[in-house]
């Protein structure tokens, strides 16, 4: 048990030490999106899916935002820079913004 605890503590400390600030920013955003999605799901379990399109729009928007943030994180991580030689962090951010705009258009369309 103490091994698990120590493993977790080393994981946390190394995360705090070695991860760049920009990635932590994205991580915070992803945690926020994850929590929002979980709360929406709990609501649906309690209240049912009656305005079905509204639930789908909200849940899809959180899932899509999470996926897009994960992509942004992968592309801006300096350790992955060798895999994306042509994608600068700024380019990745522009893609992130553009994809979010498209997702939000789809979500607004679906909200009805």
């Amino acid at each position: 048990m103490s091994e698990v605890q120590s493993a977790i503590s080393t994981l946390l400390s190394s995360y705090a030490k070695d991860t760049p600030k920009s990635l932590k920013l994205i991580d915070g955003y992803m945690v926020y999106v994850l929590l929002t999605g979980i709360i929406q799901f709990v609501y649906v379990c309690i209240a049912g899916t009656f305005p079905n399109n509204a639930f789908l729009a909200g849940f899809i928007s959180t899932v899509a935002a999470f996926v897009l943030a994960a992509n942004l994180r992968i592309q801006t991580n300096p350790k992955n820079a060798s895999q994306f030689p042509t994608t600068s962090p700024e380019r990745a951010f522009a893609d992130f913004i553009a994809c979010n705009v498209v997702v939000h258009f789809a979500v607004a369309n679906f909200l009805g």
Partner: protein
Amino acid sequence: MAKFRSLLLVTLLASLSTVIAESWKVSDINLQVASRDGTKKIDHKLEYPQVIDELTASSTDSLKFTFKIQNTERPHQAMVLFQSQDEFQDEIMVAASVKGSGKGRFELEFAKADPKFRYGTRKYSMTFLVGGPKIDEPFKYKLGQIEVQGPSSNPPTRPTRVEYKARPEIYHQFRADQKLINTAISGTFTLLVLTPFAALFLLWGQLGINFAPLKALAHRPLDLIAAVVFFGSITGIEFVFYSYWTHVTLFPVLQYLGVLSLVAFISGRSVLSTVQERRLQRTESAKKSS
């Protein structure tokens, strides 16, 4: 000249004669009832107003009817109308064929004719009708009555009378609205869904983000304008999505989006390229210092 005048008179008279209403002249009207083996039971020669009565025919007999049209005009229709003399007042038309010579005839076998003849023993009045378009007044001759006996075995059943009346009114039933959940629960969750913002700002607050580059923007007005335009256009796009959700239709939305996305693209390019420049400068200076 006198010859011409007499010719004119003749043509005038001729045209007058057609103007003076011509009437149908029908002669040689002959009515026969024959049994199935061909022996004549009844043979009547008729003259226009003359009426015959007490004619009888059995269900297997046939009725022969002949006449001759004296007019040069040929009738378009010649028929005998049978009207049953009971409470049903069935009407049966039997058409006669008229040849070019003016001779007309029909033969009616009661066993094979209209099933109305076989509903039972009953009397029919007979009316002979001749008509055509050139002669206004049709020829109408009430011939008299005939009693036709019903068939001895399995007579056709009279179809039940169809009554046309309003059916009971149909009321459209709308499906009941699905129940929305209690507003207290949905309101609670609306607030709950906003709580992750607290987690977001908490996590971001712990990072110790360096706002110096943002502050430095104030000293470079061109970059500041580009940044403001970029974030303004993104906000504008989101606002357009919001109004699309609430009240605006698709096509105006697409127009707004086209303009705003163009602005966002151009301003975003300049903003992100300055960011990239600064990042490259920073990494180079870091390399040199190391």
